[in-house]
């Protein structure tokens, strides 16, 4: 049976750690999901929430970041919501795979721009919607084994 938990914190870097603890606690302690699934879901959530704090809220604290974790027998859906600056249309779709950095060319040693590509590689489906002042990044991952709980 599908179960959902909503998690919310303020848009501060230290609060992202509370979301990590909660998400991993649910996936590990209560559901005993395989480690590879937990790692992927955890990393995708952290990257998505980092982006909300950094980009949607421009690093401003005091705003609401909401994560919804929906656990179905063979699927985990994750929604990260904010009411800040939406992502530019087409930005997510434009993300491709990681560029190979060249050891001889310092210009390819990029310090940023990996978050969305990491999310896409962790999750099977990634969609973004900005509607009525609420922005939602929807991410979904198929679970091989389903819930063991």
């Amino acid at each position, binding site marked *: 049976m599908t179960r959902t938990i909503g998690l919310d914190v303020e848009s501060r870097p230290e609060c992202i750690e509370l979301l990590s603890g909660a998400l991993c606690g649910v996936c590990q302690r209560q559901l005993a999901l395989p480690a590879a699934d937990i790692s992927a879901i955890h990393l995708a959530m952290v990257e998505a929430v980092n982006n909300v704090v950094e980009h949607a809220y421009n690093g401003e604290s005091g705003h609401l970041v909401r994560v919804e974790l929906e656990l179905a027998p063979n699927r985990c859906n994750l929604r990260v919501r904010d009411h800040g600056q939406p992502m530019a249309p087409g930005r997510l779709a434009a993300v491709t795979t990681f560029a190979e950095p060249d050891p001889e060319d310092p210009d390819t040693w990029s*310090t940023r721009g990996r*978050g969305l590509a990491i999310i896409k590689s962790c999750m099977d489906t990634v969609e973004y919607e900005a509607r009525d002042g609420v922005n939602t990044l929807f991410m979904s991952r198929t679970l091989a084994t389903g819930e063991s709980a």
Partner: protein
Amino acid sequence: MILTHRNIEGIDIVSLSGRLVMADVPQVRQKLLAIVEAGNGKLVLDLKGVGFMDSSGLSVLVSVFKAARAKGGDMVLLGLSPTVRSLIELTRLQHIFSIFDDEATALARLAESAKSAAG
């Protein structure tokens, strides 16, 4: 995030332990850049104690790597946990970072690059 620092024959060895995430990034970046600045740019970064890292952590690694190279040195990585290793491989950074399992080999590599740079 706990950071410990030793210097062996001109090579800086820094161990991080904890989760290298956005909340810790400003402080860790600043400390590592200060170490590279003060030293000769040869740095072993021991990540044995780092169980989780996100892309903001990767950005620290790249920044410090760039600073080390700019000084004619190098930054090499030691003791990657499976999670951190797979993040680095996913993002192709193993093409620019040298990765070692034991400290002696890492130190030898940096000492060697020092010699070849001198010679």
